[in-house]
């Protein structure tokens, strides 16, 4: 369109800005802002107006000369969310406009709140001012408000050294050979896998190991949508697998099958890493994959 000679662009502007006097009341507020304080003015009826006006908006009476420091925190009473900030807005990223009733004030101040996203803000939210680097006596000496600090993130890290002795060592040595070892409790007649030294039901010792096949049945499973360094892909499936001849299921990953096709009763077999890469570790088993046999009816 600008190439059309009959269309003109024009700008209305006051070069260098338009100078306005503030008067004593607004001037006091702006001067206090320059000192990083927010003040209101008291009306004859005792209300604190923030930002201050020369008159009480309810009665038209002049306000008193009493200035009261308020805030700096306040409570959001009304807000609206801007997804696409305009030039001239206080923030260049999505933000909220909010009416903020500063602590000690009877009216609400309008300003911007940097809350990250709309879900992070609600009526009643507590917000604090974030000051601009060099206050000059202007409403934008408050750069914006930010939600009150209600949580912090602290890092926790401790290192441990674990050693597989006893029954776990026996089981993992079996895994190194490509065999799952379990144990039968003589008194309960139950087969536990992984192999353990005592029966959790009766407390009797379990002396001998028992080799179990690497086939089994899925008893239950979960589809995981959060990435895990040990998992083949997202989503991945972790399942309880009842190895054949065992009485207790073992937890493992399921692979070589789309997540939504995994089902209870599905027959699976362990997929082992090549023999040359095997160690005494559960990473010996890549995952369990469907065998293609018919599903098993679970009791």
């Amino acid at each position, binding site marked *: 369109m600008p190439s059309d000679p009959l269309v003109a662009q*024009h700008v209305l502007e006051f070069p260098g800005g338009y100078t306005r006097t503030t008067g004593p009341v607004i001037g006091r507020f702006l001067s206090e802002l320059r000192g990083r304080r927010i003040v209101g003015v008291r009306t004859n009826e005792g209300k604190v107006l923030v*930002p201050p006006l020369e008159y009480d908006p309810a009665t038209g009476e002049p306000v008193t000369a009493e200035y009261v420091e308020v805030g700096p925190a306040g409570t959001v009473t009304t807000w609206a969310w801007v997804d696409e900030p305009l030039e001239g807005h*206080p923030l260049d990223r999505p933000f909220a406009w909010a009416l903020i009733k500063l602590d000690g004030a009877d009216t609400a101040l309008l300003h911007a709140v940097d809350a990250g996203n709309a879900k992070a803000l609600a009526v009643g939210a507590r917000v604090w001012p974030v000051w601009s680097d060099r206050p000059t006596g202007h409403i934008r000496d408050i750069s914006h408000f930010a939600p009150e600090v209600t949580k912090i993130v602290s890092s926790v890290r401790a290192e441990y050294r674990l050693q597989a002795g006893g029954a776990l060592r026996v089981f993992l040595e079996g895994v190194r050979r490509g065999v799952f070892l379990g144990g039968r409790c003589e008194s309960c007649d139950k087969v536990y896998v992984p192999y353990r030294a005592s029966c959790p039901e009766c407390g009797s010792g379990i002396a001998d190991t028992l080799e179990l096949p690497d086939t089994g049945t899925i008893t239950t499973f979960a589809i995981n949508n959060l990435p895990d360094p040990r998992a083949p892909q997202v989503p991945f499936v972790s399942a309880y697998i009842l190895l054949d001849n065992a009485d207790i299921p073992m937890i493992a990953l399921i692979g070589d099958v789309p997540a939504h096709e995994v089902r209870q009763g599905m027959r699976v077999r362990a997929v082992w890493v090549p023999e040359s890469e095997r160690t005494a570790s559960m990473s010996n088993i890549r995952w369990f994959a469907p065998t293609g046999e018919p599903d098993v009816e679970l009791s």
Partner: protein
Amino acid sequence: MRDVAIVAFAQTRHTDHDAGQTEPELILPVIDEVKERTGLKRFGFTCSGSCDYLAGAPFSFVSALDALGAWPPISESHVEMDGAWALYEAWVRLQHGDIDSALVYGFGKSSLGDLNTIMTIQLDPYYLAPLGLDLLSYAALQAGAVGADRKELDEIVRRSRADGRANPYALDLPDPDGEDFAVQPLKKTDVPPITDGAAAIVLAAGDLARELCPNPAYIRGIAHRIEPHYLGMRDLSTSASAADAARAAGVGKGPVEVAELHAQFPHEEIILRRALELPGETVINPSGGPLAANPVMATGLIRIGEAARRILDGDASRTVGHAAGGPCLQHNLVTVLEA
């Protein structure tokens, strides 16, 4: 009080774009139309409403006077606001008793600039304008304060747009769909259309009203009230000034068949319906209202004109026209019209 009536109303076929007309060219047809309807060539008083910031040209309302033969001894005035307030001034002037007729007009081309940010200039220069608070943002703050049901808001937009399609002067706009936000909680379809247009009304007092028109729309009550400008000093979920103006104008003294409300956003209709205490039977904005055509500075005058037209046409006996100005319905003018 003298009997003062609206005896003629005309409006442009509003456009959603700049049709390239100067302001005198925009208003000339509607002034010619009301002159022809009434047979009047000269008026006891003339008053207009417009806003120079829409055109970005100082005193642009002065050049618009070229459309009406501004030759002495014309008695003329202007309000830098919606033409509805020009009508109020003309009504007051007619109450003086020495003249019997007045021409009122309002006009605006909101297509020339970015109306959303131009309306920032109307805000106070110390606390609000320096934040760059724009029209959609402050309207969204009020929508948030109202907290209206989304279905009710969509229904208001749908009804307004459907009525607008049946109104040859309004715009043909699609029904609301989608969830695109302008400024949350306002959806893009809640935003009134950019519109260029103008309107004119003739007022006549005493016997002249009946001579000029078979069904004059008598102004039985007219009042305006204003609230504090600063948004944080008001309860944005209600409109105390609209309620006060409605009581002063006597809206509740009889049934209201039609109410034309200057509700630019659907939540404003909810606020105004409550403030004016309009019963469910009252038909709201059968013209489509500002959601179907919003020629800024004429929109309020058109509400009064549309309310009067129902009486001029003989379709209604008691109607209400409402106009608003300032951010978030700060200033409200309510007119009760009767056959």
